């Protein structure tokens, strides 16, 4: 087995453990490359099927191609696709693009808060109806107790300390100083009422591994990652107002791999296009209260 086979095996094992142990399980799909690889790994684990609902938090500021791609793939792969949102903040214009908050607060409203309330079932969820081919209100309101997330340890310092199965209390907060042990292939699959567990099958993958795997498996990826002729492409996807493309000539997966291997991007952090990381406190603060 080469390094990709080993990574795949580990992730599949984790996905199957999660599916076996959690009754109310979901998987977050941000449409980005990592969570799309995760979705593909679910098809690997379950022999072509995705028996887990996918949850997308729609900030309504996503780059439009992302939403189009999401809905196309959802229909094509017969996904149980659900989205949630922070309707109140959007209606009250409590966002950064509206000029009423800074970036961090905007993230907190449109992402952390929306995520928390969508997972708990307090706020409405919308589910893709495969017959009508559009979203309808979902009547299932049970909280999700297992949430599969595509974070990678190489992305940033606090993520390098994550467990594969990481408990969060009812307030969604993460106690980094006192994480439960995890030995061999045994994970935290038991949890007290009122808590939930985040599951991280991609922890051991690097950005390069993700692209190598996309190439090997021929996974369809949203076109924003590629230079369409203008000499720029996105390296990490988020909301349009806070995400900038990087300068890069790469038009194909192969060219991205070569670009990463050449070290040309070594002086640019992966999330450098994401403006909210730069504000003080940054990601550890956001992550401690529930940000992915």
């Amino acid at each position, binding site marked *: *087995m*080469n*390094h*990709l*086979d*080993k*990574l*795949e*095996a580990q992730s*599949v*094992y984790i996905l*199957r*453990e999660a*599916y*076996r142990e959690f009754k109310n399980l979901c998987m977050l799909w941000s449409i980005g490359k990592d969570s799309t690889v995760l979705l593909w790994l679910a*098809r*690997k*684990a*379950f*022999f*072509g*099927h995705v*028996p887990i609902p996918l949850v997308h938090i729609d900030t309504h500021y996503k780059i439009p191609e992302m939403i189009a791609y999401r809905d196309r793939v959802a229909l094509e792969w*017969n996904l149980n696709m659900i989205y949630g949102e922070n309707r109140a903040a959007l209606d009250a214009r409590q966002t950064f693009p509206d000029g009423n908050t800074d970036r961090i607060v905007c993230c907190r409203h449109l992402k952390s808060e929306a995520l928390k309330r969508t997972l708990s079932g307090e706020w409405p969820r919308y589910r893709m109806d495969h017959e009508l081919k559009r979203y309808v209100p979902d009547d299932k309101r049970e909280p999700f107790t297992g949430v599969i997330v595509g974070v990678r*340890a*190489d992305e*940033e*310092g*606090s993520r*390098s*300390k994550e*467990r594969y199965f990481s408990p969060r209390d009812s307030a969604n907060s993460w106690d*980094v*100083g006192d*994480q*439960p*042990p*995890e*030995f*061999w*292939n*045994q994970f*935290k699959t*038991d*949890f*007290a009422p009122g808590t939930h567990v985040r599951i991280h099958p991609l*922890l*051991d993958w*690097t950005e390069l591994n993700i692209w*190598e795997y996309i*190439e*090997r*498996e021929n996974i369809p990826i949203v076109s924003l990652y590629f230079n369409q002729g203008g000499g720029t492409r996105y390296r990490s996807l988020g909301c349009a107002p806070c995400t900038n493309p990087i300068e890069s000539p790469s038009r194909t997966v*192969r060219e991205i791999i070569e670009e990463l291997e050449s070290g040309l991007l*070594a*002086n*640019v*952090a992966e999330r450098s296009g994401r403006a909210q990381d730069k504000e003080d406190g940054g990601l*550890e603060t956001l992550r401690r209260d529930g940000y992915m």
Partner: protein
Amino acid sequence: MSTETIDRVLSRSRMNIVIVGHVDHGKSTVIGRLLADTGSLPEGRLEAVRESCLRNSRPFEYAFLLDALKDEQAQGITIDTARCFFKTASRDYIIIDAPGHIEFLKNMISGAARAEAALLVIDAHEGIRENSKRHGHMVAMLGVRQVTVLVNKMDLVGYSEEAFEKLKAEYTAYLRQIDVEPVSFIPVSAREGDNIAERSASMPWHDGPTVLGQLDLFTTGRELHEKPFRLPVQDIYKFTGSGDDRRIVAGTIEAGTIRKSEEVLFLPSGKRSVIESIESFNTERKEAVSAGEPAGFTLSTQIYIRPGEIMVRPGDLLPEVGTRFRANIFWVGRVPMSKEKEYKLKLGTARATVRLAEIVNTLDAAELNLSQGKQQLDCRDVGECIFETTRPIAFDLASRNETTGRFVIVDNYEIAGGGIVLENLSGGETLLERHIRERERHWETGSVPTVERERVNRHRSKFIVITGPPGTGKRALSRELENMLFRNGCSTYYLGMATMEHGIDSDLRVNEKNVEERLRRLGELARIMTDAGMIFITAIDDADDYDIATLKLLNDPHEILVVTVGRNDLQNAAPDLHLEEISDIVEAIERIANLLTLREIIVDYQI
């Protein structure tokens, strides 16, 4: 893709390395330095850390490259393990930086348990400390076979060869006591960069590898492929809802290789079948699969198996099956492990209820002193203990097959200990047998003798269990049987499972952990009903050998009668009666009634 790049991607391997040792001996610094000296850091990262140190007016530390948490930087220690991605020309590495502080032992273990090799750091100036020893011992217990010792801070002892040799001799002697033979000893100064990525000019006397060189010298074990085949069954999938009729047995192969058309055996159930196909998604059709691969199989016959069983090849050396075993265990739970409590055991994909039966001895992992007579395992104790599960499980001895020979113990939702199996001790009295012995000793009988009851009732008592797959008409049959017996003057009662679930069992959540408790309550109830002279009837889905044996034991000294419907899943003891299907309920009842007459439970009957 060019063939050259394909070759490169295909041949690349990866390895996890853990770095351990006493607090402040320089683990994080070693890794930070290694990353910096090999140009593995993103540009500007080092400068950013330097700047931030300057801004906060504190000395620069390479360790800050890894100790990313605010609390870690504030206290200057590692709290939780960090993964660092690192590559050399020949391999990809994840280097796991473990904390050295005793309080974070569980984090250190979490890191070390997924490593294939370990770097153990000892401060040359401070010498061997408590956790230098404890970590050495833990690493060996966790199954890490390759250990290199880094004697760090050589700058503080004047790069003295003598100091190095002295420490080396002392620590080698310790490792010998715990049966560990280190791969190498390397004198380093992490802060100055000596023998990390570059050979040290200050220690020309060292002729071994640098740390960087040593990493590529570690080997990845291939021997797993040659071992007897083991597949802990993780789940059984059937996605009928999505129009897929395959029934797939899924799991990751822990050892060996298996091919299509081979015969397989499931333990502990003892069921057999043949591999019909090997299933996968987006790959070529597979004819064989080996250790490490996540796999899926369809079988040529429809047998009922449960997650947690081990699929093996009948001709191989078989795993052990039992309820009692001796193991080495370490405990990191907040609350001590006691003999009074029930715990959950997770071994491979199996889960079972387990009790600590006996503490043979405990070991002070720092000093290697054995002590006897402890009544509980305290946090950070290492001990040799005897465990008993309520239900039989399949496992290997760790000496034969590591991955199916180790387990964790869950206490109050959290993994609190881990261990490796040394010996199968099954065969003696089980927990259930002991319980029944005790129960019978205290059983309080009324003043009506059994024979009197039988004379008045004109029949003997019996516990009738009707079992088989769901949807075979067992319940209708059971109810009709009750009706017929009653009309023939018998004292009889049919107990529905829904009655149990919403009554006696209403305090139990519906999940696999409670299957055993449900079974126990049913068996205890049967003991009472049969004692009352009744013919007590119940229908349960998919009972296996263990379920039947348990009910039989619990109902003892009264008798049980087992009827299987649709499919007979029992391997050990044949059922008293097997009905292929219930096409004619009257005929089915007649067959049961005949049997009851034959066995002299009832005298005669009329349908």
